[in-house]
């Protein structure tokens, strides 16, 4: 009881740094149909309206994007414009902890039920294709001395394999493997980054890998992109290296930027009922 009381009385001061990790999770641009837009049933001859909330629930600002409605028969459920540009949407951050969102509407014309049918079930897909990115930043242990000493004496212990969850975007660096090998008087440090699609959509472009750094020092990578074919066939790794002089172990952030086009979809349907 006393502990609870003490904990409840603990107050952070204005000078305490804000420590909320927005760069987590695997979502990016999310689509959500608004209720009753369109209604589940409409009567033949009436018009319809599709309204979808487009939210950037990832941690990065969205670049170029487009949303398209596909699957509607223009004869029975005509629609004025099938696509629209998604305006720039900022991702989640300290000053915007939900991320930007807006509502996109698609106006439909007069509906028709095919001859001989009692009703027409109109199924459609909303597809958002957008440019997105993410930055992985993970503190790693560098031990250029190649000497393993007891944990209480060492600055840090190298983890052969670090598994990661998402970095606030649908594509994520899911694993970092580290190897250190001697090269003359120096040591070569290799990082094998595994990149996966952890979102609910699909990667529709090569994943460009850039700005791979250890602290402020650049690393050299064996490739600059992972193609869609490589991603689907689990050849989804990139090896980045750096040669360092032998010195004491230290901790440094490994960071890399991934850029790609991503596609996410949302299904919807409504029924056009013949009028009597």
């Amino acid at each position: 009881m006393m502990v609870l009381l003490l904990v409840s009385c603990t107050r952070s001061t204005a000078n305490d740094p804000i420590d909320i990790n927005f760069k987590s999770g695997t979502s990016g641009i999310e689509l959500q149909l608004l209720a009753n837009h369109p209604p589940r049933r409409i009567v033949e001859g009436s018009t319809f309206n599709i309204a979808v909330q487009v939210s950037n629930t990832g941690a990065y600002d969205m670049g170029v994007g487009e949303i398209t409605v596909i699957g509607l028969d223009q004869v029975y459920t005509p629609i004025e414009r099938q696509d629209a540009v998604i305006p720039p949407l900022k991702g989640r951050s300290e000053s915007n902890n939900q991320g930007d969102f807006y509502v996109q509407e698609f106006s439909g014309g007069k509906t028709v039920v095919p001859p001989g049918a009692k009703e027409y079930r109109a199924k459609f897909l909303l597809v958002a294709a957008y440019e997105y990115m993410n930055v992985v930043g993970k503190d790693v242990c560098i031990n250029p001395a190649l000497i393993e000493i007891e944990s209480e004496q060492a600055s840090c212990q190298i983890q052969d394999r670090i598994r990661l969850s998402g970095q606030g975007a649908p594509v994520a660096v899911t694993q970092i493997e580290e190897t250190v090998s001697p090269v003359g008087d120096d040591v070569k440090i290799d990082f094998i980054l595994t990149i996966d699609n952890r979102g609910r959509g699909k990667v529709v472009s090569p994943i460009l890998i850039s700005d791979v750094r250890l602290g402020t020092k650049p690393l050299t990578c064996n490739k600059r992109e992972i193609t869609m074919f490589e991603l689907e066939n689990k050849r989804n790794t990139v090896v980045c290296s750096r040669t360092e002089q032998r010195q004491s172990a230290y901790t440094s952030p490994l960071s890399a930027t991934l850029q790609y086009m991503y596609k996410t979809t949302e299904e919807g349907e409504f029924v056009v009922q013949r009028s009597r």
Partner: protein
Amino acid sequence: MKKVGLVILVGLFILSCTPRNPENINQVSAVTEFVRSGVQGVDMRFVQNLPPRQIYDTADLFALLELRNLGNYDLGRETFQQCVVQLGGFDPSIIRGINERQSCGDLPGKSEFVVDGGFSTVEFASSSIILPQDVDKYEPPLVATACYEYKTVAAPQVCIDPDFFEITSSQRACDVRDFGLGGGQGGPVGVTYVNVDMVGSRAQFQIEVANLGSGRVVSPRASITQCPGGLRYKDFDEVQFQVELSGARLVRCAPSDQFVRLGDGRGRFVCTFDVGNVPAYETPMRIELNYNYMQSIRTPVEIIRTPE
């Protein structure tokens, strides 16, 4: 009346000049025993909240380290003695401008006059923290590593009995027996056991030493300037020894180069002395261990990018 006063004064004077009583002698002996025991060398700790647990990248980083020599060997008083503290664990391209390697300063060991050991402070400061682009948080451990030359001297009393005179045990001055030494001798490496064997006029001592502290033993052949980052595996776990037995001649020691390797923190060497044809007697044996020692402490620090 004046005579009485004079007598009282003289009495007081005589009392003040009386030598220390046995109780005081015991106290002095206890202090001496205290300062020559223990298994610590240099004790380090970060001053509370220096460094703070969390700071913004625009703030200055300041760490203050307290050092205390809890062993029985003076550091820093002679120019050839070396004791350095290195702050590491962080990426110097991010936390910049720190004077990473500093001398421990003057650190006298425990003595009858400085019972708690010498004390000094070392400060590390950086006013330039540069988080890499896209890195919002950096959590390195700040690791302070002290590397220092040290010496432990053990002086156990040993019984020498060549057994030439074959008198009954009750007539002997002492009985030859093996014995253990607990509690250390005022340094992180200490003598733990002495095994005595008499072979005619020769006394053979098997001496066990161990790393009793929390750090790592570094060979005295390795230079402190290489510690900690430049050390190789061969530089660890080696102690130099010297053994003297009063009134006896050293015949040989094994290992003959007088460097003993520690395996699992323990090592053993053997020294043989020629004691001659003498009746049993007890004498102090001086065992000197020279080594370098390395130990670390750590504290976490979290550097957070200042929100824009």
